[in-house]
């Protein structure tokens, strides 16, 4: 069992792990997109930008203030959450009455501004960010070396995803949220402050993106363009999975990450496009997405 289809086992395993890591980012990001879309009917183009800001905050915290990874893992989503809070209050809120595309265009504008600012300050090259001391090694599993940090990324993402799923599907707060998605007017009539709920949902969604960004910082180089390249792939993930169910987003994200990783092993030329090809196939076979409902 040293080789599978002529590919050495350790190489296969490490690509599988990279696939899982990428899949974790897809899962967390598409989850945030789905939560925001559910309540606000806005496709948050700025999700990639907030992911990038999350990673940069971690890097800045380390470089300028000497704040370690674990503190930034909490602080960075909080800061981005506050930013999201302000954006929803001052801008997004005025667009709920008009066509949904304006929400997309507004967040596209925000993306360009945020990316432009970071590009002006840091250029397009990546900034290295070291993994925290406790997670920098690797564990020998016998058949492969498991880099501790990558394993942590997958575990932490899964934990956050499952926590979000539990909150939305099993708690009272989540019940309000689901009801608000179905019929905001009725929920408001029952005395729930829907506008505040909407603001907090947006803040939470973008905080998730920032969390993914901090997780990603030690794995990939921190660069101003890391978000916009990723977000389009995440859009494809969302189209494939459908935004109907949370578990669906998580499974689709992880699954596509793994498929992408495997493609890199067996047919590298297709690794950049495989997600989009799968999207085309899913649209032909099941237009509403794997886990989506009609309409």
């Amino acid at each position, binding site marked *: 069992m040293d080789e599978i289809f002529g590919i050495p086992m350790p190489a296969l395993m490490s690509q599988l792990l990279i696939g899982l890591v990428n899949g974790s980012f897809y899962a967390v990001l598409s989850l945030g997109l789905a939560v925001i*879309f559910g309540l606000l009917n806005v496709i948050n183009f700025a999700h990639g930008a907030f992911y990038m800001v999350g990673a940069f905050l971690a890097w800045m915290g380390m470089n300028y203030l000497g704040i370690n990874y674990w503190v930034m893992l909490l602080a960075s989503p909080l800061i981005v959450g506050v930013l999201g809070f302000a954006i929803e209050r001052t801008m997004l809120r005025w667009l709920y009455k008009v066509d949904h595309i304006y929400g997309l265009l*507004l967040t*596209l*504008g925000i993306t360009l501004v945020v990316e*432009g600012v970071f590009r002006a300050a840091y250029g397009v090259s990546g900034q290295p960010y070291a993994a925290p001391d406790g997670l920098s090694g690797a564990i020998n599993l016998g058949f492969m070396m498991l880099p501790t940090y990558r394993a942590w990324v997958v575990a932490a993402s899964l934990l956050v995803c499952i926590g979000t799923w539990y909150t939305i599907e099993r708690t009272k707060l989540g019940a309000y949220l689901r009801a608000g998605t179905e019929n905001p007017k009725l929920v408001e009539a029952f005395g729930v402050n829907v506008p505040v709920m909407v603001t907090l949902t947006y803040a939470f969604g973008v905080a998730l993106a920032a969390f993914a960004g901090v997780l990603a910082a030690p794995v990939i180089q921190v660069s101003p363009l890391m978000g916009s390249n990723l977000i389009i*792939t995440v859009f*494809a993930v969302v*189209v494939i999975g459908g935004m109907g169910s949370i578990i669906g987003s998580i499974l689709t994200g992880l699954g596509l990450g793994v498929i992408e990783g495997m493609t890199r092993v067996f047919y590298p030329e297709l690794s950049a496009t495989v997600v989009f090809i799968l999207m085309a196939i899913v649209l032909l076979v099941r237009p509403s997405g794997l886990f989506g409902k009609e309409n």
Partner: protein
Amino acid sequence: MSKIALGFIALCGAIALPSVIYPVLLMKVMCFALFACSFNLLIGFTGLLSFGHAALFGASGYLAGYTSRELGIPIEGSIVLGVLTSSVLGFLMAGLAIRRKGIYFTMITLALAQMIYFVFLQAPFTGGEDGMQGIPRGKLFGVIDLSDDLVMYYVVLIIFALAFAFIARIVHSPFGHILRTVKENEPRAISLGYDADRYKLVAFVLSAALTGLAGATKAFVLGFETLVDVHWQMSGLVVLMTLVGGVGTLTGPIVGAIIILILENKLGEIGEFLAKLTRIEWLGALGESVTIVTGLTFIVCVLLFRRGVVGELNAFILNWRRSSTASSARKDVNAVQEPS
């Protein structure tokens, strides 16, 4: 009648303009104006926001450049091949994307365009990151030498005028009215017996073909083609041009293209001027931050200015006419009442 007169004046102006302004810049403006007008055919008159138009624009440019440079096909043939390429790509893209509605449609076009971008990034004939250089203009119909910018300008002007007339014809045709019905109320259009998806598909392919015309022409005007034209930010830029000018107006995208291109090309000078005027030094660095300014324009337009320049102007004229007829009507009423 006044519209035809206005069009005639605009055409005369366009014929005289290259004596004042550098013709290559004017040609670039016309190519982007045509691009924005074709894009507007979808968002303004069919209600579909495509975020994949850059891929169609760039694909046509690359193909026209390749057939002209490597295969020696004359310019008119290369442009036709470019248009065909973008039409076929548009057909495939729309065929997949119209399976979902609204915002999903947009995401699918964006994702498919990203796929095309990666293909062009990896394909050997595009020259990758370096782009495709030295696309020859050659001779039109084997007779007219296009290496002179002024000659090329008039050819591009004819292409632009014909394409614009074609778009205007589509918009005012019965077909165009059905497209607007689909935009305003799709279930109603379907219940009236129109196959909405088919109309969307045809509109998309028409828009893709005209986008391809703009892309191929632009490749010959500038003589090179780069990945910038295929990248999603170019799709964003054409959305912005249309939005600034006025979504759903015929001339709006032209105005928008002019404004955005001036902003992009002259931002450095505008910044220096503002810095001198206001004595705020960082305004001088405006030229290096095109992305930020583009983003801010987006935000301002979406929040405060959704009708765009031409849309606001139309609304103002309509309002003014209405109030003037209303006041004259009031005078009439007074005139009748006075004798008693």
